[in-house]
């Protein structure tokens, strides 16, 4: 469903992505991990065109994201995205956050949008908070709202950019639980995260990045059981030995 072919990207002289190639099939969950500054967040933001690339091709279903003529707005409305810092609209209630895209992009009626918003917010256990503003919620609650906001658009795939990195430790699980459930429901997901427990549990494949390149791209079992590269071994030993 998502295919990334020989993608390279530069910030002026500095190369952030170096000939990256990978894919995410329909219904697959792919975890992208690696040390900070390795280009994982940049890569995932290229998938829905939030970041342009200078070389290579990215396709989502039959749409070529990297082609000049592509209607990015239309493409983005079909791919959900969850950000590290939630990025809920602070001046709108939870309900309005969930309805904005539905009404303005998908042209759903207010009734339809509200119904969808209520059922999604109920699913993440925040029914009684629907009239509140993001500032009145904890980080974990905000991120669950952000996931619901993305799901309200009925996306064909979901992108997660370090969804738990900005959370206090005790709130990480409530967000991961929602993501696990989503994965088990068959959602196509590309997830940038350091949560290796999550990766082990639901990922079909793990992509390991370092210094802008994809160093390993393997089945989850194989990646954790027997990483090939020294860099991945080193990374795993640092992140798992606590």
């Amino acid at each position: 469903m998502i295919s990334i072919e020989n993608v390279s990207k530069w910030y002026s002289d500095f190369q952030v992505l170096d000939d990256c190639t990978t894919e995410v099939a329909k219904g697959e969950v792919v975890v992208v991990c690696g040390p900070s500054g390795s280009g994982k967040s940049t890569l995932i933001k290229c998938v829905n065109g939030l970041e342009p690339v200078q070389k290579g091709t990215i396709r989502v279903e039959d749409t070529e994201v990297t082609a000049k003529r592509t209607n990015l707005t239309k493409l983005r409305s079909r791919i959900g995205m969850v950000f590290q810092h939630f990025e809920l609209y602070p001046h709108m209630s939870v309900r309005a956050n969930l309805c904005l895209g539905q009404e303005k992009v998908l042209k759903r009626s207010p009734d339809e949008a509200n119904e969808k918003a209520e059922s999604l917010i109920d699913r993440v256990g925040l029914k009684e908070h629907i009239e509140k503003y993001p500032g009145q919620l904890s980080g974990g609650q905000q991120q669950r709202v952000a996931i619901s906001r993305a799901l309200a658009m009925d996306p064909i795939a979901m992108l997660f950019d370090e969804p738990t990195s900005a959370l206090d430790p005790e709130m990480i699980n409530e967000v991961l639980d929602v993501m696990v459930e989503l994965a088990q429901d068959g959602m196509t997901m590309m997830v940038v995260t350091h949560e290796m427990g999550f990766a082990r549990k639901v990922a079909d494949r793990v992509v390991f990045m370092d210094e802008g390149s994809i160093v390993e791209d393997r089945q989850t079992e194989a990646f954790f059981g027997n990483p090939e590269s020294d860099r991945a071994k080193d990374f795993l030993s640092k992140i798992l030995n606590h």
Partner: protein
Amino acid sequence: MGDFDYNVIIQNLPFLWQGLQLSLWLTFLAILGGIALGTGLALMRLSGFLPLSLFAATYVNLIRSVPLILVIFWFYFLVPLAIGRPIGGFYSALIAFVMFEAAYYSEIIRAGIQSVRTGQVQAGQATGLNYWQIQRYVVLPQAFQNMIPILVTQGIILFQDTSLVFVVSLRDFMTVSSIVARTEGRLVEMYFFAAIVYFVICFAGSLFVRRLQMARTS
């Protein structure tokens, strides 16, 4: 100050009130128009489309390097030439104020827009909202919330600046006060009274701004 004559003020209150109404009405309309046009200019400047941003930048810098009184003169004499008939002092002054204040408001609004985090724009983009929808529903509401104190402050300055309309023979509060002062021969009383009225209105505005800022930081 023994012979301070309060009666001259009281007797002329209806006339003075007319002047004050004109000043306040002009201020109100100029703020509305200035913010509307200023928002447009700010969006053009930040659009990333070179001809638009160049036009907005040139406009803002040009207007800001000209004294307001000159702009008022321009519109008083130029607009009738351009449209072929006189439009009167009030409308020419209003156009001048809107065009002039828009340049200042656009700089305030531009800063306000830039104060909204890029992540908010990305969130809007990721949902499939287009550029204008993102500005309208996500960026501008947050930008204006951040900007209200400084917008009000600019409004206070604008209120004081409306006293310049005497050059196109409009009877604003300041002009009316001068007329009374000269015809009644009571300069001290009238200029003292005018100063107090300006002070009270502007100080009330400043207090309002301070309350807004306190509310934001608490």
